[in-house]
C-alpha cells in the first residue's frame, strides 16, 4: 500500500515533467479535436498520429497516445449528443437519449453530465488499475511460452466472438489479421513469406498503413456521398453546461452502475467498448421505475453508458500493459506502438519501465482533469467544428493519412499499402465483417507464432503440453467455454427465432 503510493507519487513526477506534460496535453487536445469531427473515432485518430510517436521518446509517446485515446472518446460523445451522430460506435447508445435532450434544450446539461460521469468513471478505473496490475504481474511472472500462447488465444477468441455481430465473421477477421502479421521475413528461418517479390514487404506490413487503410480510407469509401451532415441548431454556452440539482441526483446512481459495468468488462480481455455501453444502457432501462422515459431524453441513458465507456477505457490498460494482451483494437494499436519503440509489454514492464507504467497512470488523472478544464470554455469551438462539411473533411484527412504514413519510414510504398488495405477494408465492411479484430490479430500474430514455436520446441512437439500445465489449461478451458457458449446461443436461436439480441432491444 505504502509502496503503491510512493510509486504513484513517482508517476506524478514523471508525468509532470514539462516535456511529458506537453505531449500529454497535446494528445488530449488533438484527440478531443479530431474525435469531435464526424466519422473520426479513437482508432482513426490514433492511427493518424501514430507516425508522430516514432520521433519522440517512449514515455511522452505513450502518454500522448493515451491522451488521444480518452480525448477522442470524449469528443465522440459531443457529436452523439448534439447532432445524433455517433462518430464512434460506442456512442451510438448515447445518441438515444442525448439527442432528445438536445432537442429539449438540455444538450448542455447532457454534456455536463457526460463530463462528470467520464471523470468519475475514469478515476475509479485508474484506482482499479493501480491496485490490480501489480497482482496480475505476480501471476504473469509464472508464464512461459505455453501460457503466453494460451492466453493470447483466449484474447483473440474473445475479441473475435464477443463483439457485436456474427462471431464467425469476427473469427475470420482475426485469422485475416494473423495472416497479415505473417507477411515478411520469418524470424526463425529467414524465409520471405507472402512478400510477392516486393523487397519493401520484407519487414512486414506497416502497422500505420494497415490501420489507416482499414479505419480511414475504407471508411471514406463507404461514406462518400452517403453521409449528410445535418446543420445543428444546438447552441450551447458555458453556463448551459451545469446540470440542475435534480438532474445530478437522477444521474448519480446510473453513473456508479455504469462505472461498475465498465470496470467489470474492461478486465475481461476482448470485450469491445460498444457491447459495454449497450449493456450499461440496457441495465438502466431494466431497473428504471419508468422505462418508457428512455429514448425521450432520460439523463440516466446518457450518464450510464458514458461512465461505462470511460471506466472500461482505463481498466483496459491492465491486461495490455501487464500481460501484453490488448483488450481491443485501440489497445492493440497502443501495444504496437510500444513494441515499435522497443518496449516489450508484459509482466516485466512495471519493474523494467516504471516510468512508463506509473507515468501513464498519473497522466490519466492529469489528462482527465485537463479534459474537464478544457471542454467547458471550448464547447463553442467544438460545436462549430461539428459543422465542417464532409466534402472538405475527408480529402483533408486523406492527405494527412498519406503524409503520416510516408513520414514513418520515408516510404511511398507504405502509402500504396494504405490504398490496398482501404479497398480490402471497404469490401469487408460492405459484406458486414467487423474490421477491428484484424488489428488485434495483426499485432498479436508474430508474438503468438514465436511463442507457439518455442512452446512446441520445448515440449518436443507435444500439443498436450497446453493442457498439462495448470495455468495454460485454465485458459484453454475458458476458450472452450467461449466456443461452447457461442454454439449454445446458435442452437437456441435456431429453435427460438424470437430470442432477440440486446442491441435490438435497445434500438427499439
Amino acid at each position, binding site marked *: 500500500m505504502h509502496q503503491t503510493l510512493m510509486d504513484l507519487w513517482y508517476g506524478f513526477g514523471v508525468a509532470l515533467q514539462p516535456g511529458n506534460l506537453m505531449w500529454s496535453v497535446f494528445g488530449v487536445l488533438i484527440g478531443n479535436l479530431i474525435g469531435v469531427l464526424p466519422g473520426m473515432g479513437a482508432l482513426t485518430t490514433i492511427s493518424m498520429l501514430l507516425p508522430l510517436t516514432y520521433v519522440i521518446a517512449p514515455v511522452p509517446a505513450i502518454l500522448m497516445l493515451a491522451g488521444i485515446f480518452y480525448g477522442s472518446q470524449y469528443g465522440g460523445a459531443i457529436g452523439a449528443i448534439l447532432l445524433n451522430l455517433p462518430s464512434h460506435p460506442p456512442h451510438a447508445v448515447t445518441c438515444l437519449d442525448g439527442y432528445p435532450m438536445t432537442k429539449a434544450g438540455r444538450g448542455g446539461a447532457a454534456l455536463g453530465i457526460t463530463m462528470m460521469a467520464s471523470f468519475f468513471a475514469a478515476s475509479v478505473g485508474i484506482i482499479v488499475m493501480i491496485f490490480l496490475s501489480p497482482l496480475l504481474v505476480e501471476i504473469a511472472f509464472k508464464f512461459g511460452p505455453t501460457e503466453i500462447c494460451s492466453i493470447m488465444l483466449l484474447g483473440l477468441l474473445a475479441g473475435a466472438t464477443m463483439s457485436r455481430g456474427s462471431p464467425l465473421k469476427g473469427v*475470420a477477421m482475426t485469422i485475416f489479421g494473423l495472416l497479415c502479421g*505473417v507477411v515478411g521475413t520469418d524470424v526463425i528461418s529467414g524465409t520471405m513469406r507472402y512478400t510477392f517479390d516486393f523487397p519493401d514487404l520484407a519487414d512486414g506490413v506497416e502497422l500505420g498503413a494497415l490501420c489507416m487503410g482499414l479505419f480511414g480510407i475504407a471508411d471514406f469509401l463507404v461514406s*462518400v456521398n452517403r453521409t449528410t451532415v445535418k446543420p445543428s441548431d444546438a447552441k450551447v454556452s458555458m453556463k448551459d453546461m451545469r446540470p440542475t440539482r435534480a438532474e445530478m441526483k437522477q444521474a448519480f446512481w446510473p453513473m456508479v452502475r455504469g462505472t461498475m459495468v465498465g470496470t467489470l468488462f474492461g478486465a475481461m480481455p476482448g470485450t469491445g467498448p460498444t457491447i459495454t455501453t449497450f449493456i450499461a444502457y440496457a441495465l438502466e432501462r431494466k431497473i428504471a421505475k419508468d422505462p418508457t422515459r428512455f429514448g425521450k431524453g432520460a439523463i440516466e441513458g446518457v450518464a450510464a453508458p458514458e461512465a461505462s465507456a470511460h471506466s472500461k477505457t482505463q481498466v483496459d490498460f491492465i491486461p495490455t500493459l501487464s500481460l501484453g494482451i490488448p483488450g481491443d483494437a485501440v489497445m492493440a494499436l497502443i501495444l504496437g506502438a510500444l513494441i515499435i519503440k522497443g518496449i516489450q509489454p508484459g509482466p516485466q514492464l512495471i519493474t523494467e519501465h516504471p516510468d512508463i507504467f506509473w507515468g501513464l497512470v498519473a497522466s490519466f488523472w492529469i489528462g482527465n482533469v485537463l479534459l474537464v478544464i478544457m471542454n467547458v470554455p471550448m464547447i463553442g469551438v467544438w460545436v462549430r467544428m461539428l459543422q465542417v462539411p464532409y466534402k472538405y473533411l475527408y480529402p483533408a484527412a486523406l492527405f494527412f493519412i*498519406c503524409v503520416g504514413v510516408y513520414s514513418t519510414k520515408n516510404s511511398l510504398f507504405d502509402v500504396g499499402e494504405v490504398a490496398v488495405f482501404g479497398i480490402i477494408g471497404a469490401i469487408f465492411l460492405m459484406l458486414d465483417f467487423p474490421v477491428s479484430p484484424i488489428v488485434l490479430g495483426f499485432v498479436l500474430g508474430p508474438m503468438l507464432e514465436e511463442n507457439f514455436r518455442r512452446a512446441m520446441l520445448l515440449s518436443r512437439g507435444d500439443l498436450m503440453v497446453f493442457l498439462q500445465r495448470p495455468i495454460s489449461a485454465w485458459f484453454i478451458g475458458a476458450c472452450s467455454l467461449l466456443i461452447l457458449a457461442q454454439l449454445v446461443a446458435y442452437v437456441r436461436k435456431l429453435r427460438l427465432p424470437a430470442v432477440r439480441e440486446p442491441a435490438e432491444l435497445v434500438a427499439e
Partner: protein
Amino acid sequence: MRRPKNLGKDHLGALMLLALGAAVFALGLGYRMGTLNRMGAGFIPVVLGVLMMLVGVALGVTAAPPGQEKIAHPLPGDGTHKGPEWRGWLCIIGGVVAFVVLGEHGGLLPATFASVFISAMGDRNNTVKGAAVLGAILTLFCLIVFHYGLTLQLPLFQWH
C-alpha cells in the same frame, strides 16, 4: 451493392473466405513445413489457411437467406442511396495513388495538391473550383507545417 439474386451477403463473404484461405494455403505449401517439433516457415500460414477455409464453410452453411441478413454494423447514411458509388471510390483510391505516383515523379507539393483535389472530386457536392481551393489551402499548409516545420524528407519538387 448489386449482387446475384440468389447469393446473400453472407454467402459472398463465405466464398471470399474460401478463396482467400485456399490462396494462402496454396502459397504456404511453397515454404518449408517442418514438423510440430521443429516448425518451418510454412507451418503457421498453412494452418491459418485451413482455418480460414473452415470458417468460410461454417459461414456458408449458417448464412441467412439473401435479403434477410441481420446487419450488425450498418454502413453510414440512411440507406436511401443504393448501388455502386463508382465516382467516389475511384476518386478516393485515385487520390492515394496520385500521392504515391506524384510523390515519386513530381515531389511533395504536386502530390499534395493532386491527392486533395482528386479525392475531393469524389463528393458530388464539390465543384472543380471548390476542390482546387481546398487543394491549394492544404498545399500551403503542407509547405509550412510539414516541409519547414517538421522537415519532411520528400523534396518539394523532383523529376525522375
